[in-house]
Each structure stands twice: as C-alpha cells, then as structure tokens.
C-alpha cells in the first residue's frame, strides 16, 4: 500500500472532515489560497469554497476568539496558528473563554474547535519559531493537547480532534511534515484522544515520549537492542488528558522509565509525568529520569541546535550512562 506523507495526512484529515460535516470550517494565515507555509493545506479552498476555507489577517488573538465564538454557536472551526510560538498571542481566548465554557456554563454547550500549529526545533528557525507550546497549556482544564508522532497518527488524531466536542490544541512537529509512513490501519482511521500507544514492546526500560520524540525513541531502542537492552516505547499522543494507566502498566513491568522531552526540564511534561508515576507507582520503580533540553532558549546555529536537541543518539547515550551508573558498585 502506498506510503502517506505527514503533511498529506493532515490535509486528508481536514478534507475528509470538511466533507463529512458542513459545520466544519478552516481558516488561518495563508492557509487557503497559498495552501499554508508548510504546504499542508493546498486545494481545500478550491474544493470547499471560500466560505468554509479562508485566509485571515495576522491576528492570532482574533482567530482564537473567532473560533471560540463560532464553536459555541454551531460551527466546528479548525484554525491554524502558523508556528506554535505565536500561540502566546492566541492564549487568552483559548484559556479564558474556550477552556472554561463547558464547565462554567454547566454544560449548556460545547466548544468543538481545533487549533493546529507547527512546533519544534531542528529546522534552524531560531528561538522564536521553534518552541513547543504544549506545556504552556498543559495545566488548563478543559483543553485537550494532541501531538502525533507519525503520518497515520496525524490523520487519525486530527480527525478525532475535529470530531471532539472540546477545544483541542494540536501540535505538528516541523521535522515530521516530510516523513512518510503507512496509512492508518483498518479501524485506526480515527484514534481516540487520551489513549497512549505502545510504539514498541520491551522489558528492561520504558521510554515515554510524544511527537517527534517517538521516532527518536524508536531509533534509540533499535540501537539499545544491540546492547541487549530491551526498550518499551510509549507514545503519549496527548499531553492532556494524560494516559497515566498505560505508562504505569508499562513501568510495572520494566521498573525503569525515561521521559524524553524536546523542551526544558523545569516546567515540562516529562517531569510532571514522572511525578505522577512516583505518586501512583513508586514501589514499582527502580529508576526514573528525564532527557530534556538545556534551560535556555533554542539556538539558531546548527552546531548549537544539534547539541541542544534530545535526538536518538542522545537518548542512547543517556540510557547507556544511566544504566551503567546504576549497576556500578556504590
């Protein structure tokens, strides 16, 4: 079966949901006529018309507010905030309007909206076009935060996000757009939100990651298999809600967990995940640690950015040294 490119998976998910439900609309900066700066959305305007797919001014806050207001009055808006870094401008409406509505209205209505953004470093885009904003929103009840790791997940999770009746913050890693992979398996065309996946089974160590971190962890697992270390890779898929049971079940078997995050250790999801694991599964745990980025902004220079990122080699290195340390005589 022909391979699916990540950016095409995004496009197909949008097209299928626009087709399926006339309430779905899609808008953003340069997404319609130009088809998006990452070429993810060409052709949608031509197919669904300018009333349902349109370009907007550079007004992230208004886009966020427009999506909220439209979502509580009968539409299912999907909008793009080109780079996740710009989500700081769109935050108020998501946090203080969309995320609150279902609860404070006492369930009078739902807020079915999705905001898509390109995130992540490694593209030499510098400190203000490379951040991953998931953690900015992880502590906001009412929001869901989705971060696919493969083309099949991108399609299945975006379709589920558009069908979800809650506001969804959807992250697309820049370095995944050109990745090709198998299309969704039968029955996986729509992937339930809040359900982590076991990307690889193993016995000695659980590596938990999300988004681009998952292929990196899988590559590391291959290398570590050569060392005789059997790694289980858990793909979180969503940062909120967090599928703790799947992680706990894995750790209960492997007794060791490494959380790999492309972002700073302090205030990141990785530390929070280990905290939750410690709270629930402390006595299953022989070791728990984090591989994250340095506590600085993201550098531009290739040498600095490469060293900054927790790539596959860094994961391998971290596991080897941590396990060695562990067995070293006290």
């Amino acid at each position: 079966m022909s391979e699916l490119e990540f950016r095409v998976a995004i496009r197909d998910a949008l097209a299928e949901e626009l087709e399926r439900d006339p309430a779905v609309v899609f808008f953003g900066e340069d997404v319609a006529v130009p088809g998006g700066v990452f070429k993810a959305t060409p052709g949608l305007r031509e197919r669904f018309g300018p009333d349902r797919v349109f370009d907007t001014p550079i007004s992230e806050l208004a886009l966020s507010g427009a999506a909220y207001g439209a979502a509580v009055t009968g539409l299912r808006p999907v909008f793009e905030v080109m780079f996740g870094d710009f989500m700081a401008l769109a935050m108020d409406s998501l946090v203080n309007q969309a995320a609150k509505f279902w609860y404070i209205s006492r369930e009078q209505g739902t807020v079915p909206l999705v905001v898509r953004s390109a995130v992540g470093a490694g593209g030499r885009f510098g400190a203000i076009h490379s951040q991953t904003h998931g953690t900015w929103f992880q502590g906001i009840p009412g929001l869901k935060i989705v971060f696919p790791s493969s083309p099949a997940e991108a399609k299945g999770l975006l379709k589920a996000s558009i069908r979800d009746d809650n506001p969804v913050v959807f992250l697309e890693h820049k370095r995944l757009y050109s990745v090709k992979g198998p299309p969704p398996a039968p029955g996986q065309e729509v992937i339930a939100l809040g359900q982590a996946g076991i990307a690889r089974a193993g016995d000695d160590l659980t590596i938990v990651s999300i988004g681009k971190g998952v292929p990196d962890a899988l590559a590391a697992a291959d290398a570590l298999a050569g060392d005789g270390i059997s790694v289980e890779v858990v793909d979180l898929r969503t940062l909120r809600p967090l599928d703790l049971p799947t992680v706990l079940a894995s750790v209960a078997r492997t007794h060791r967990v490494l959380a790999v995050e492309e972002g700073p250790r302090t205030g990141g999801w990785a530390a929070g995940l280990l905290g939750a694991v410690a709270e629930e599964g402390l006595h299953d745990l022989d070791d728990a640690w984090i591989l994250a980025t340095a506590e600085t902004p993201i550098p531009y220079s290739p040498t600095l950015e490469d060293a900054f990122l927790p790539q596959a080699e860094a994961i391998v290195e971290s596991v080897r040294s941590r396990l060695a340390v562990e067995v070293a005589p006290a």
Partner: protein
Amino acid sequence: MSTPTARPPTQALDAYLDAYGRMRLIREFEAAMHRLFLRGEVHGTTHLYAGQEAVAVGVCMALGAEDYVAGTYRGHGHALAKGTAPEPLIAEMLGRASGVCGGRAGSMNVIDLPHGLVGCYGIVGGSIAAALGAGLAAKRQGRVSVGFFGDGAANQAYFHECLNLAAVQRLPVLFVCENNLYAEFTPMADATAGADIAARAAAYAMPAVVVDGNDLWAVRSAAGEAVARARAGEGPTLLECRTYRHYGHSKSDPAPYRTQEEVDRWLERDPLSRARDRLVREGLAEEQIAAVEQATTAELDQAIERALAAPYPDPETEAATEYAP
C-alpha cells in the same frame, strides 16, 4: 459618522412599554443585587448596570430571539434584556444550584445559550471576540451577533483585531460600545488617544454611529439600522452609546473620581425616567405604565424570594466533568 436624533418609533408603542418594563426590571434587579451584596448573599464582586439600561434594552429590541449577544462582567442588564429570566439570574449571583449556570459562573461570567446569550466576559474585550465568532456562525444562519463592551475595551487588542476581521469578512455583527466615561477609575479621555471611540471605526472603513445611550428610542433606531445592514450582508457597524453608570465601578467603589455635579447632570438624563416621560407624551395612560411597573416589581420580588430559598450546590453530589463527552 452621523448622530441620529430620536425618531418616531418603528415598532408599536406597546413594544416600548414592554421595553420600559425591562429597563425597570434591570434597575430594580441591580438595586436588589446591591442590597444582597451588602447582606453577604452575593459574593466576590459585582458590577451594576443601573443607568445604562437603555443601551442593552434598546439594542435587544432590534434583535430576534435567535440572534446572539455577548455581554460583559457588567452583564446583568445584557442578560435580562436578551431574555434571561430573573430568578435563575439572581440564583446565579447567590451561588445557588438553581442559578442559570448552577452557581459555577457567578456575576461576571453568566452564560444563557437558550436565550442567545453566548456569554458575559470577565476579560475586558472578550465579548468583542465572542461576538465576532458568533458572527461567523450567524452569517451562515441568517442571524446577527452583538458584542457589548465598554470605553476601556476600545484600547484592548480584541477591539482592533476583531473589528478588522469582522469588516474583512463582512460579518453581521454589531459592536456596541457603552461609553460611560470611565474604565474603572480612569477617565476615558486619559487612556484613549483621541478620545473618540466611534472615530476608530474609520480605521476599518466600518460605519459608526454615536448614540445618546440614555435614549431608548435613539438606541433602538440606531440598532435597527445596523441590524438591517447586517442582515442585508453589508457587514458590521460600531455603535458608540454615550451613557453613565449610577453606581461605582464595582461593589467596593464609592467613585470619588466623579464630581457630584457630573453625577447630577447625568441623573437628570436618567434613561428610565426619560423613557417613562416619553411613553406618557406618546399617549400611554398612567395606569398602563403603573401596571407594568407593579408587575415588574412583583415578578422580581418573587424571583428573589425563590432564589434565596434555593439550595447551594452540594460538592458531593455535583457531578462535574472536565470534558464534554
């Protein structure tokens, strides 16, 4: 930017009598909120709408039940004008389970979707965004959307981005600025460069009207024209309604920054008595008006009594979910 003077009613006089009744309901509702706050029954803070009744009521007269309204934290008037019943609204202020939002929202954040009240917004400018978004849906539904906001909100990011986007998309939205001369304790002119909010619409080539916000007829007629434009696909309008709040900004504010002379001048232009006088001038009998007033008072008294008798939500049994299923 034109300043229309009040024109002959475009609806039958009884519609104005009914509207006067709603203005009166809001006035008495706010007096009751004030008392209940002092009694410790209304919690946190509350922002009273008294003095601005003609704006919410005049605009809502021009709307249908299915049209959308987004109000502010000073939103009791917006809710009552759009059709929210007094009892669940009072109960919400009192934090009771029978509140329109079950006591979860409180005075600043009332939501009543069944009556088209998309929400009231604690974030200054938030109502502008909600109205913009509702306008996207309204355009497809043949409805219109109204966002109420204050003079202070005209300096907020939302004002600029949302008016521009609404104009670009020609959305059926009324942006209704209630210019009551103060943002909290700061005089409008001290914070608003140019001190002319209606003039800001020109930045977006959007029509704007300055209205006497204490004249029910003037507000109704300006809103009617804007609604007509919106329904005709001609896009958004900015209405700047000049008005004044009778109380301080919020419960805790004695409003020392306003001179007695200024307050008196505005009390002379009280929208409620002006509406009443006009109804008499237009030929309504004193008894007719008095009957509406008595009915209003009776309705409110009963609503308060019922609300006060309602239970508080029980955290044990309250089945709150983070997400919609």
